[in-house]
């Protein structure tokens, strides 16, 4: 975590004061209006990322982690999705107050996104060179020839072999890992300050996963970008993330620096997630599973949304929604009994 203008005391809090975060999402709310009712997909989410930092957003499918990211990028499908509240402050400006055209210029150039399924996320009828070069043509107005040359450079940068020969190939002619590299190249094209990677390795073979993840982490370090890594896989997170935000039912239930969270979670849900990772040193024991199912977002339980599945549930959990408690420096937890949870873990 090297900061450009080295703060005298690079401790977490001091740095945060010295340099405003690259991206600061405050109390974001998104709902989906469907035939079956209104689903509050994102319900007051706040998080922030600094330059050169990696924030991992962890959660099951339907927890709102991808929707938050789409809202930040400004690519929410609307209808049915509607942004109903909050602020997205990026480099000091609230994106939600910008005009559509200003917003568009930021997309792709200042912040970029990597999607899960590269095969369906790349246009099947355009060559990868055309899709990469398009970034330069649109945002920088360079010629088609120049754009193609830059596309080759990009492909070399993400270590695609024989880039010059393959620049005219189509997405279906590449392997899964190579396609995801092309997605990464596309995101990197204009040297963005923030990259949002939505499950970037989930669709890949395990052997390829590590390569792609390493490449992403390496490029992030090199270019000191902010990275938001959205995943449901705790294993991916441990090596690359600085901070973790755990989401459940459209809310953030816990935020913590990565090692602290692994060592001692402050929310029963996080605890459940950690306990359900198979571990070699516990071979033979039955795997832990969080009981029950994630809630239907059109009918989130009152009080703490996690209470029907929580092993520590008490009466207050059924009625009072917990606030985000300040648990430690840079740590929060949305659990009335975070102390017990924390102590129980230690």
């Amino acid at each position, binding site marked *: 975590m090297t900061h450009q203008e080295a703060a005298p005391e690079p401790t977490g809090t001091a740095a945060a004061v010295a340099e405003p975060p690259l991206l600061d999402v405050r109390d974001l709310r998104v709902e989906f209006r469907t035939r079956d009712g209104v689903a509050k997909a994102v319900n007051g989410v706040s998080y922030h990322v600094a330059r050169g930092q990696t924030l991992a957003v962890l959660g099951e499918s339907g927890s709102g982690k991808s929707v938050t990211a789409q809202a930040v990028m400004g690519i929410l499908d609307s209808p049915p999705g509607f942004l109903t509240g909050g602020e997205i402050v990026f480099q000091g400006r609230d994106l939600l107050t910008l005009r559509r055209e200003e917003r568009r210029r930021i*997309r*792709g150039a200042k912040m970029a996104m990597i*999607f899960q399924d590269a095969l369906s996320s790349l*246009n*099947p009828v355009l060559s990868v060179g055309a899709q990469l070069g398009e970034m330069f043509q649109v945002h920088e107005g360079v010629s088609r020839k120049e754009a193609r040359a830059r596309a080759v450079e990009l492909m070399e940068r993400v270590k695609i072999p024989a880039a010059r020969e393959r620049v005219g190939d*189509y997405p279906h002619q590449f392997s899964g890992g190579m396609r995801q590299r092309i997605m990464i190249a596309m995101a990197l094209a204009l040297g963005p300050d923030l990259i949002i990677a939505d499950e970037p390795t989930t669709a890949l073979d395990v052997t390829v996963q590590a390569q792609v993840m390493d490449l992403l982490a390496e490029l992030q370090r090199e270019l000191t970008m902010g990275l938001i890594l959205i995943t449901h896989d705790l294993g991916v997170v441990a090596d690359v993330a600085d901070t973790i935000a755990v989401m459940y039912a459209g809310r953030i239930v816990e935020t913590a620096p990565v090692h602290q969270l692994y060592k001692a979670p402050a929310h029963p849900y996080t605890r459940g997630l950690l306990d359900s990772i198979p571990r070699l040193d516990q071979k033979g024991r039955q795997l832990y599973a969080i009981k029950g199912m994630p809630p239907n977002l059109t009918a989130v339980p009152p009080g703490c949304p996690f209470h029907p599945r929580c092993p520590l549930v008490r009466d207050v959990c059924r009625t009072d929604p917990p606030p985000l408690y300040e648990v430690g420096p840079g740590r929060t937890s949305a659990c009335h009994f975070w102390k017990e949870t924390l102590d129980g873990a230690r």
Partner: protein
Amino acid sequence: MGRYVIRRLLQMIPVFIGSTFLIFFMVYALGDPVAAMFGERAPDPATAAQIRRELYLDAPLWKQYLHYMGQIFQGNFGTAFNGQSVIELMVSAFPVTLRLTVVAVVIEMVVGVVLGVFSGLRRGRGIDTSVLVLTLVVVSIPTFVSGYLLQFLFGVQWGWAAPSVSPEVPLNELLLPGLVLALVSLAYVTRLTRTSIAENVRADYVRTAVAKGLPRHRVITRHLLRNSLIPVVTFIGTDIGALMGGAIVTERIFNIHGVGYQLYQGILRQNSPTVVGFVTILVLVFLLANLLVDLLYAVLDPRIRYA
């Protein structure tokens, strides 16, 4: 690619033979061309037999067919009822129908795609629903009904267009007949485009294009439209052959002397060479249009080109 074209061409041959033989069979085996020549009068048996021999009609049907096809490939289509050679009729009729078809295809392409894109992007809203209902209504009105209706309204009541087309067949007079001919296909093109757009607008690669910060018009034209038009192009391609065959009704309503008119006369007067000759050419046009579509498909979709 080259091998693919050759394979498709080879596959066309049995279909061509089958279709033309079927028509040949209907005309020459179900009907009696010689009796038709004499109209109401019963022919003198000796004369009839002589004509049969001259026209090769006493041979078995498959031999007749082979003989006929052989003649056709030498450019001899026989003689029509009024003594004109069928080739002459074709030379005068096909350009007329071709123009009519081109007008129709342009109308269905431009109007259909624009309407389809428009309603596909507004899926589920008022405009979309109205367009959908309207297209169903249009599909339900047979061409001969809509033809008379439009002719009556535009040509007679309001006087916006000529109710019938003059012998020189100028393009501006073909606008109304072209619209009538195109109408049903227009509705299909609209629905096809709309469905295709509405499906693709939620596609991941469109989301990627938006996330790349491309302007809306570029997202639509370069990413969305290009993919969505593939099935539409297929439809229009196969439709060209169909329109030329279907011009029979439109040409009758607007008194256009094209392929449909000549064929109709040929059928009424049971003039076998005219009917079989024209239909053979139409089948050929239909098959070639299909081949063209297949090739176009490969050009538009690289996944097929390299498959």
